[in-house]
């Protein structure tokens, strides 16, 4: 089950999941045509798999509950990947509170609601993996990107809490934190000359992390060290950095 299936990272994870085995997959997204395109592609790659498509308002708690219940009736998924989010323009969000609200809601609140809804079914069944796509940006707020960072940081605490809740059970919670990845969402960063990880490499690491059930995964792994340093920089020093 993939929420935010039209995200480039999620789509590449899906391609890897269907590569060697047939699966039954539910794809959730906002834009029906685009999800259909994703599903068609996956179906060509894996004719033996089945794909269901759901379009849902990702900010409506009732709709999210209904969706998770509907999916659970057909069988609680073994893996739930929650991948949606948007990379807002920090400056526009500072000027426009509607944009700010939307960014926080879509990238932070909505994934948390999906996680809560599916956590219920996974808990009942007693096993399964719930994976979030967080971000290195969630590790410490920075002036260039703190609205996105705050939303992703919310997922950090959420995943942490779920990991605590499910400790000792068969339910595993995985938080993946990609560094900047070469996707349409980061086209602006790329145009500014940022070096970005290849999306298929990132997907490969995510699929492996979900398989192993590792609690927190940085992709590429160099970001674990980089973010450790950034998190531990004393504020007087950190605040002078232009990042």
């Amino acid at each position, binding site marked *: 089950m993939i929420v935010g299936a039209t995200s480039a990272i999620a789509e590449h994870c899906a391609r890897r999941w269907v590569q060697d085995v047939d699966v039954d997959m539910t794809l959730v997204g906002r834009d029906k045509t685009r999800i259909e395109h994703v599903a068609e*592609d996956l179906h060509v790659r894996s004719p033996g798999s089945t794909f269901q498509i759901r379009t849902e308002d990702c900010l409506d708690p009732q709709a999210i509950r209904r969706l998770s219940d509907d999916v659970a009736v057909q069988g609680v998924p073994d893996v739930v990947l929650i991948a949606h989010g948007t990379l807002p323009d920090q400056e526009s969000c500072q000027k426009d509170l509607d944009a700010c609200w939307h960014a926080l809601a879509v990238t932070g609140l909505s994934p948390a609601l999906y996680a809560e809804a599916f956590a219920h079914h996974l808990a009942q069944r007693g096993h399964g993996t719930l994976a979030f796509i967080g971000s290195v940006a969630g590790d410490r707020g920075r002036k260039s990107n703190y609205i996105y960072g705050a939303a992703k940081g919310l997922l950090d605490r959420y995943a942490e809490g779920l990991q605590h809740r499910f400790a000792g059970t068969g339910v595993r919670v995985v938080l993946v934190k990609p560094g900047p990845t070469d996707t349409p969402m980061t*086209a602006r960063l790329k145009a500014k000359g940022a070096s970005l990880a290849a999306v298929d490499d990132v997907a490969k690491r995510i699929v492996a992390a979900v398989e192993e059930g590792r609690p927190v995964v940085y992709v590429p792994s160099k970001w674990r060290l980089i973010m450790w340093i950034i998190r531990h920089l004393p504020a007087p020093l950190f605040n002078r950095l232009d990042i």
Partner: protein
Amino acid sequence: MVMVAVSSWGRLGRWDHEVTVLCDRGRVGEDIQRDRPGLAHGMGRSYGDVCLNPGGVLWKTTGLDRFISFDAVTGRLVCEAGVLLRDIQRLVVPRGWMLPVTPGTELVTVGGAIANDVHGKNHHAVGSFGHHVEWMRLVRTDGDMLDCGPALRRDWFAATVGGMGLTGVITEAAIRLRPVPGPWLETETIAYGDLGEFMALSHESAASWEHSVSWFDCLDRKGGRGLFMRGNFTASGGRAAGHARRWIVPFVPPLSLVNRATLRSFNETYYRLNGRRAVKKTMHYESFFYPLDRLLEWNRLYGPRGFFQYQTVVPPQDSLDAVRALLRAVADEGTGSFLAVLKTFGAMESVGLMSFPQPGVTLALDVPNEGERTVRLFDRLDAIVREAKGRLYPAKDARMPRSLFEQGYPKLDSFLQYRDPGISSGLSRRLMGH
């Protein structure tokens, strides 16, 4: 607006472009409506400026990388235009199918393969890429969307196959694949002494070998020598297929590393084969078709100044003399290529107005950029091509004179009527005026 420096495969320079990524085939019409001209750009594997639009917009098509449908019974594949030939091969080979035509690298997009009407080692048997396209969807910068194929808007199809991306943005295509018994080919390599022997081997192989190509040693002054390679698909397998190890050229060396040392593997094979005895080998299709794909970023070997590729086709009546004269010029000038690739094209007429393949012998030379000396060599080669009524391949070109282009492509005037006014490339401005 942020500009990014982009270069093409020849690495002759880097030019600023405004780059946007196309990733939703349903939205391309909106994405390409701009106040200034743009150009579709896939993997940037063409050598010169056919894939560049310096100072303008590039629409990167690599986000259009979805398959749409595949019929394992008929072998008909429909996909978005940014799908790589590699991804098609890996999808369909295990199901008993393969792309009917493939160039020397599989790291190109379907859109690029159509726009340059690429050919492969089996041109004499099956023609070029465009012969196997059933239909495609073209989106114009005024937002119009039109489907075309050999049986539907034939004129648009003829303009777009080999049309260098100038008639619109190709967003999806249907390709007829060919059945294969597996990923293996039985191959033979034969050493030959001069061009006459090459012609004889080509002739003799045309009917019974689907694939053939030849390497020729440009430095040999004793009339020449070469290796002729041919192959057919076979049901009998080699070792279990696994993707071969890949190497990368990690940085650009300060000087071109392409030099006499490059000929070493050629020499070894040549001397091993001495005596015109064919060496037979079963090869995986990736090693046979794409030997250079295993060396990622091999274009860096030519150093910071980059390199040209000079590829021409000369009509059959004079091809032997013309190729001989071209190779003599290369040897005389002492610059440029050490190894030439030779292949005889078949008689099948290309479907595109601007397609490169035509009957005759095609010769491709990789030439390091050495400034003035290189210009001199090309002037000499151009004169021979002009005289032989040959043409140069736009996908490889960064410098041909406009007069040679016009002489080589007599259907240029009809082609121009189909151009999209919102699309422009470095090559179109250089050779068509806008």
